[in-house]
């Protein structure tokens, strides 16, 4: 009986603490931007996962897509695509891509991570300027921003007390940035078609001028084994906004 309970608790703790990211997960968010104190819906953000197979290996394709609602398209069209191909078990990235189209401004970026994760072969193209290629060294634990968020979802967050942090290093714009994710506590948040969910409230901070304020960039992850991001609040130099989960499928 005692043994059974120990095994059961071990199994449940593994299930709850070290969840795996499944393929075919689709999370849809409504993105709002704060204009004159009112949150205005501007775009839809879709986070998807799928399995991609090559002749040698199977990868998990993580993608984030942002597209403005049709009413905004004539004024300021956004079609952003962030992608990362990662190892399904470790979430270590092999290929990261960023394709930005924001009101006519275009940038495409491709990072190919070396097998030992020590260098990145990058290709960047901004507007109509010529493509630039550069190889640069990175730390062994460095990853792209997308795989970092998915990695965060697989960590044992139950052991984090309020005020404790997890550290990551992300590569963005050919530079490495230390990122810290601090546990702020638990809150019940509305989670679209999932109803109300108990969530971990966490603060994301990075040594960059792209994020502003202390504890102003927040993410709420469900406290169940799925760790679904249900709400994201951000503060950037040009204002504040939020992503609210509207539907989740394949979880």
């Amino acid at each position: 009986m005692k043994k059974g309970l120990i095994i059961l608790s071990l199994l449940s703790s593994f299930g709850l603490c070290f969840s795996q990211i499944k393929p075919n997960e689709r999370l849809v968010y409504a993105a709002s931007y704060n204009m004159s104190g009112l949150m205005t819906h501007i775009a839809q953000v879709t986070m998807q996962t799928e399995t991609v197979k090559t002749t040698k290996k199977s990868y998990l394709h993580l993608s984030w897509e942002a597209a403005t609602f049709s009413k905004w398209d004539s004024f300021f069209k956004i079609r952003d695509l962030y992608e990362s191909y990662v190892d399904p078990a470790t979430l270590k990235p092999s290929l990261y891509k960023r394709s930005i189209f924001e009101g006519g401004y275009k940038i495409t970026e491709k990072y190919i991570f070396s097998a030992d994760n020590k260098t990145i072969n990058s290709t960047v193209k901004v507007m109509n300027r010529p493509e630039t290629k550069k190889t640069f060294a990175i730390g062994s634990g460095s990853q792209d921003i997308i795989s970092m968020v998915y990695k965060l979802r697989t960590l044992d967050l139950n052991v984090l007390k309020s005020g404790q942090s997890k550290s990551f290093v992300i590569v963005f714009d050919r530079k490495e940035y230390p990122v810290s994710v601090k546990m702020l506590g638990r809150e019940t948040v509305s989670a679209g078609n999932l109803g109300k969910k108990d969530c971990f409230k966490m603060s994301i901070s990075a040594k960059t001028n792209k994020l502003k304020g202390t504890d102003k960039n927040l993410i709420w992850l469900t406290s169940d084994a799925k760790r679904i991001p249900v709400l994201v609040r951000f503060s950037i130099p040009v204002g504040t906004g939020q992503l609210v989960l509207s539907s989740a499928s394949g979880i």
Partner: protein
Amino acid sequence: MKKTLIYFASFFAVLGIVFTILPLGTIALLPVAIALIFAFLSFKFSISKRKKISGVILIISALTLLVVVGKEVFIKDEVVLDKQFEEKKIESKQEDIKDLEGL
């Protein structure tokens, strides 16, 4: 003073119409509400000659308010299928598989 009220009401009524045409959602309520307040005040305190102008601004602002509320209630936020973007995604994925094969 009464003239100033009419000027303000007219200005915010025009601003309200512009905001209503733009996809600014509930933000349009701000100038419309201000226009309604100024138009109401000028209607109340104006002499009969100017009452007509204030009344017209009041009606226009009220109609704008209806349009803003109607847009919020009846028009759903949706993303149109962007064929060019979808094709680009397919091409990009094929290119990615080639890159991954090379690793």
